[in-house]
């Protein structure tokens, strides 16, 4: 203890600065005026077609908020490449915005930092009460049994998109089981013509880990036990991961090039430009598909199917974006008002369309698509067939270790290697050790 403070003090006093000041924050506007002069700093994630597009979409919404409450909002849209690092440095330094968007899978990890405001009874009431949210969506807000440190903002879910014309031409029906999906994909695959049934974002560790989760869930397997200890090497986990890898390895319905698809965009592009007949993607693929010139009437969506006879029909994790308030905000009341505003029914339906998101509110109608059937299917998946990713502090490590292990295995398959169940188990064991060693 002594030595530590001594070293720290020596290092820092050389500059005449104080470590103790670390917790102090500067939330954009330190003048901290009362009432009309309050300015909130808000970091939004990239949901639209570009950072600029996000700004255009959000600006009128924020202006309306300012008109209603007199609270100004200073908006910064941050790309996904930077968001996690920016949040980390904000936490570390205390130099944070008031309100921030987070990927909801990070919620429990971020909660562990103790840098965010828990939505306890009062705070929850201030933003309109927990009853207004879809329960599974709200469950992603933090560790089970605690006051969440984030609330859902945009809901997303995985669905299996298929090209109607290609299915009709091959005389296929939309698949209801994993086996039907693979059979359909095989029928639509012709490597000689460089034509494949499916496209996978097999080089994206975040996408990969989602599928590790969903496929394992269909096998009834979990990734952490009740104590938050990793259980990556269970049979259900290994088989789930292998099943997904086999789409490229054994079934050969995905182009090996997919191993290089380091974000979902690339597989969506393949689908929209009709290079492949199926993708499994979150519903915000809609805006990318439209941007690439495919109409919403040209594709259908079904739930990502589980193997025949599977007891668990999980088709997605509860995906989406949550909203958090930094604990050290000087404008707590204003921030709560803002969260309330962003999660009220009007704002939700205004933003649902441009950001292609599902409403996180009970009884709200999805507006992200003009295709009623698609809307109904995604709502059903989101509300009844989704499970949150593990709500443990080590979730971020789970994402990076398991996701990257899958990247490597896909790379091995794509470059001509073979990945057996043993290999999967060994890779997951390494990932498990990594998580265990650093927690």
């Amino acid at each position: 203890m002594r030595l530590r403070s001594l070293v720290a003090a020596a290092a820092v006093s050389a500059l005449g600065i104080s470590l103790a000041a670390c917790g102090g924050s500067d939330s954009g506007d330190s003048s901290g005026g009362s009432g009309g002069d309050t300015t909130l700093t808000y970091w939004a994630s990239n949901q639209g077609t570009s950072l600029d597009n996000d700004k255009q979409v959000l600006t009128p919404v924020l202006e309306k908020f300012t008109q209603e409450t007199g609270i100004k909002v200073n908006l910064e849209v941050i790309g996904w490449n930077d968001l996690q690092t920016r949040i980390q440095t904000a936490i570390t330094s205390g130099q944070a915005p008031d309100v921030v968007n987070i990927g909801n899978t990070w919620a429990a990890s971020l909660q562990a930092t103790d840098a965010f405001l828990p939505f306890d009874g009062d705070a929850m009431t201030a933003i309109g009460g927990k009853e207004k949210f879809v329960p599974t969506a709200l469950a992603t807000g933090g560790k089970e049994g605690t006051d969440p440190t984030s609330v859902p903002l945009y809901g997303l879910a995985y669905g299996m998109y298929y090209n109607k014309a290609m299915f009709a031409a091959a005389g296929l029906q939309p698949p209801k089981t994993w086996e039907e999906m693979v059979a359909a994909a095989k029928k639509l695959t012709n490597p000689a013509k460089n034509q494949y049934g499916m496209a996978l974002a097999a080089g994206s560790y975040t996408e990969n880990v989602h599928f590790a989760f969903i496929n394992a869930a269909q096998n009834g397997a979990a990734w952490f036990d009740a104590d938050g200890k990793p259980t990556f090497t269970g049979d259900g986990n290994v088989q789930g991961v292998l099943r997904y890898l086999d789409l490229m390895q054994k079934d050969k319905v995905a182009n090996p090039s997919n191993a290089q698809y380091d974000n979902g965009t690339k597989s969506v592009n393949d689908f929209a430009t009709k290079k492949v007949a199926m993708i499994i993607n979150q519903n915000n693929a809609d805006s990318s598909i439209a941007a690439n010139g495919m109409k919403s009437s040209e594709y259908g969506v079904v739930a990502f199917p589980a193997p025949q006879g599977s007891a668990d029909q999980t088709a997605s994790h509860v995906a989406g974006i949550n909203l958090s308030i930094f604990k050290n905000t000087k404008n707590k009341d204003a921030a709560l008002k803002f969260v309330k505003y962003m999660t009220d029914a009007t704002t939700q339906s205004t933003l649902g369309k441009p950001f292609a998101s599902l409403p996180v509110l009970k009884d709200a109608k999805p507006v992200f698509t003009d295709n009623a059937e698609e809307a109904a299917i995604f709502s059903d998946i989101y509300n009844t067939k989704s499970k949150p990713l593990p709500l443990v502090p080590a979730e971020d490590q789970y994402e990076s270790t398991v996701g990257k292990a899958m990247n490597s295995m896909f790379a091995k398959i794509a470059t001509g290697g073979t990945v057996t169940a043993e290999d999967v188990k060994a890779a997951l064991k390494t990932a498990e050790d990594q998580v265990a060693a650093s927690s």
Partner: protein
Amino acid sequence: MRETKGFKIYRAAVLAVLGLFVLIPLYVMATSSLKPLRDVQGPFTWWPSNLTLTPFVDMWKTVPLGRYFVNSTIVSVVATVFSVAIAILAAFAVSRFRFRGRTVFSTTVLSTQMFPGVLFLLPLFLIFVNINNSTGLQLVGTRIGLIITYLTFSLPFSIWMLAGYFDSIPRELDEAAMVDGCGPMGALGRVVLPAARPGVIAVAIYSFMTAWGEVLFASVMTTEANRTLSVGLRQYSTQTNIYWNQIMAAALIVSVPVVIGFLLAQRHFVAGVTSGAVK
């Protein structure tokens, strides 16, 4: 070296191989920036079949490139000016004075070149935040913070290079100036600096390039307000698309000023870089 036939063949081979190695990426950059998005997403073609200039127009809208350009320019120019000035003073002291701590200074400064950036990235960030909290001087998310950081990054090499340069200027010249009634600073201004002009130019180019191309610290220390080109260019890969043609167009545009500046002054740079090493 005599220009034997063998040598000529050797030269032709080297020039051909290395010429291609250097040129192909530049060619890809230039031609891809003239293709429509559809074409850069498909298989590569040597010649753009649908020539278009729209990437050069669109790139300013997809990403606020103009603002990043202004940021990079201000940060790099100011960092360069200060870095050169500070390096000149320090190099002059090292070259012309004997004083206690001279060796320690030189060794320490030079050894900072070995520090891995990841080691002091987070600490530097924290120190900046603490300075901000205790003095109100905003260093994170501003250009000033970046300027201070970048100018220091180029200091060690600059001091080393300039001191080598100064050493090669005969001290008799200083003394002559001193006899004429100049102080040491007068000698620096009137004799040493003019004679070391190539070295100074070299250091200036080096500092500018360091600041213009830095990625690691920019990725953590910049916010939307002070973002520089090095991290801004990544934003062309968005949620919906990767605008390769615009990336190439933007890469071309951000390279042009640096490349031209460097090539104009390359003679000095060559002389400057080697002054320390050749001795």
